[in-house]
């Protein structure tokens, strides 16, 4: 009940949230000469490097996909979703600590801060995702209406990242170690997820021992859409969705329990 009220009060601050997202977006490239170029250049460079380094090595692991672009498509479809996840997560961890100045002086609905992070990360995602779709069209690999299947996936990714982010962000107010360890966690997690390498490149015992990883089916779902141009089995998303729900409930619970102490501690 109080969560609903808190969300409602954040809605009342939508002007602030939207303006913050815009400002966030602008500030990222403000003070740089090439502005938007950088928004695109970074993921582009990353994809180029991985493609150059791994494309040949990974070829045998992608049977049935002989196009020279196969690996790039495989990589992008996983990497973009991962970047959305990791951006929300790593920015949420410091969300209360870095906004101490604001929280101490203004009665901001606390939920507006995660909302800003989520929305601006989604905006960044959409820019790169748009480019990716353009690239697919160019090489004639656009999968068509199947792309819409990405929407429920994105909802789960955002929920999972926000739930974890709010949980970590709240605890981080009291124990700043969380922020340090989150960076480590995200980079380990990245390599424990089949983004750069296909899942079948792993020995089966390793694949099985990584089954707990909710990002695994998420990434595979996205790869299926773009590489095989078909709607994946919805069953793939059951486990990540359940984890996302648990994490969101846990994050909200911890946040509710500690929100009163947050400003005291900042």
């Amino acid at each position, binding site marked *: 009940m109080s969560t609903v009220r808190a969300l409602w009060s954040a809605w009342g601050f939508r002007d*602030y949230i939207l303006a913050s997202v815009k400002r966030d977006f602008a500030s990222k490239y403000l003070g740089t000469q090439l502005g938007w170029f950088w928004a695109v250049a970074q993921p582009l460079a990353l994809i180029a490097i991985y493609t150059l380094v791994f494309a040949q090595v990974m070829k045998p692991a992608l049977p049935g996909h002989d196009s020279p672009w196969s690996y790039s498509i495989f990589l992008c479809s996983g990497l973009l979703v991962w970047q959305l996840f990791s951006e929300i997560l790593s920015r949420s961890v410091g969300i209360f600590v870095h906004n101490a*100045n604001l929280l101490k*002086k203004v009665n*901001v609905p606390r939920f507006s801060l995660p909302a800003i992070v989520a929305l601006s990360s989604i905006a960044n995602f959409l820019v790169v995702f748009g480019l990716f779709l353009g690239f697919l069209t160019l090489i004639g690999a656009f999968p068509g209406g199947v792309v819409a299947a990405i929407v429920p996936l994105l909802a789960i990714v955002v929920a999972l990242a926000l739930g974890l982010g709010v949980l970590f962000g709240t605890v981080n107010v009291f124990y700043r170690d969380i922020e340090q360890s989150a960076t480590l966690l995200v980079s380990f997690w990245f390599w424990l997820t089949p983004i750069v390498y296909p899942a079948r490149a792993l020995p089966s015992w390793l694949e099985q021992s990584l089954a707990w990883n909710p990002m695994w089916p998420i990434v595979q779902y996205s790869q299926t859409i773009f590489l095989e141009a078909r709607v994946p089995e919805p069953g793939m998303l059951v486990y990540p969705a359940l984890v996302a729900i648990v994490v969101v409930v846990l994050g909200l619970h911890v946040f509710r329990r500690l929100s009163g102490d947050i*400003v*005291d501690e900042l």
Partner: protein
Amino acid sequence: MVSLRAQGIGKAYRRYAQTSGRLREWIGFGPQHELIWVLRGVTFEVRRGEALGIVGANGAGKSTLLKVLAGTVRPTQGFYQVAGRVSALLELGIGFHPDFTGRQNVVMASHLLGISVELTAELMADIEEFAEIGDYIDQPVRTYSSGMQVRLAFSVATAVRPDLLIVDEALSVGDTYFQHKSFDRIRRFREQGTSLLFVSHMPGAIKTLCDRALLIDQGVVVRDGDPDSVLDYYNALVARQHAEHEIRQSESPAGVTSTRSGTSDAVIASIELLSAGKPVRALCAGDPVTVRIVVEARSALREVTVGFLVRDRLGNDVYGTNTFHLGLSRAGPEPGTRLAIDFEIVRMDLGVGSYSLTAALHSGATHTDGNFDWWDKAIVFQVVPGQRPHSIGTASLDVRARWLSEDECEVHPSCPADFLPRLQPSKGNDMSAGTSEGIKR
């Protein structure tokens, strides 16, 4: 109409002995913290259009109270209600981001205050004009002086008239010109019904702006009244602390020039001047105070009398009494044991100045009957101006005065209304005759 109602507001911070204490608490090891109360049972109301000043020493809890009422800090106890929109300037700002320009910050801040996008655009010119920071409006806020930041923050916070304006110290940062300007704006708002909550260390500002004041000391509301009397009380409190410190300092190294005499069959172990249970060396005229004397017997005594004497700066007796006159004579304690007595002085009606306290221990009515121990100037203390009106002399009498109306004079028998007319005719006569007549009579 009440615009703010605070009911029993209390705020406690948790203090953990170890940083891991909170973690252990989460895991379920039971409470690991102690509560540090910075506010306790704060209850008051502010009417529509009323300006309430809050005074108190640093760390008294003023700012915490404002933060609670502005909604940034959650109270541990109690609740409050605000009718309408609140605008608050806490810790000199409204959460500006140092890297963004003044203009961007104004936009964000007004959104946070609930001002719509369109209205913000409309108000921008007004805000710029009021803040008078010129071209700086398009520079990052980190390049601003603190005065400029406050000017901009105040301009935004008051761009739209709030129902309750909370200002914490902010205005003391601005220059006199801006202070006047902002006071004017606050005054205009108040006429339209805005209530003001104002913390300041400038007594002048409280007196000009506020029609009521709260004095907060150690988290508790000590006084609630008109600004003049509350500030006077506060000043007395400060003066008292100051005097206390000075007297204690001078007392400790030299031991002053106190003299002791007597047979030492019994001795005065200690004498203390207590106010609210704490030893003091300065008090306000009219304050209650207790003289506590502890005596120790060296031999068996049939009778002991304990007394105290207050003397002024020049050594003149001001007041003295003892247990004999108070009807509390008793036998001495067992040799080697102690006995304590409290003389409660309900109101210390002494005038402003320096006094000494002498303690006496003897048998019978006076110390000439058998003096065990006489301790001259055992304690030096100071009486500082309290709430009482200015007066001179060693006594501070509780005086109430009023002018009598004309008809009160006519009906009152003791009123010499007919005295003047009778005197008038004699004025024409020989003055010396009149005088000698008076003397003869």
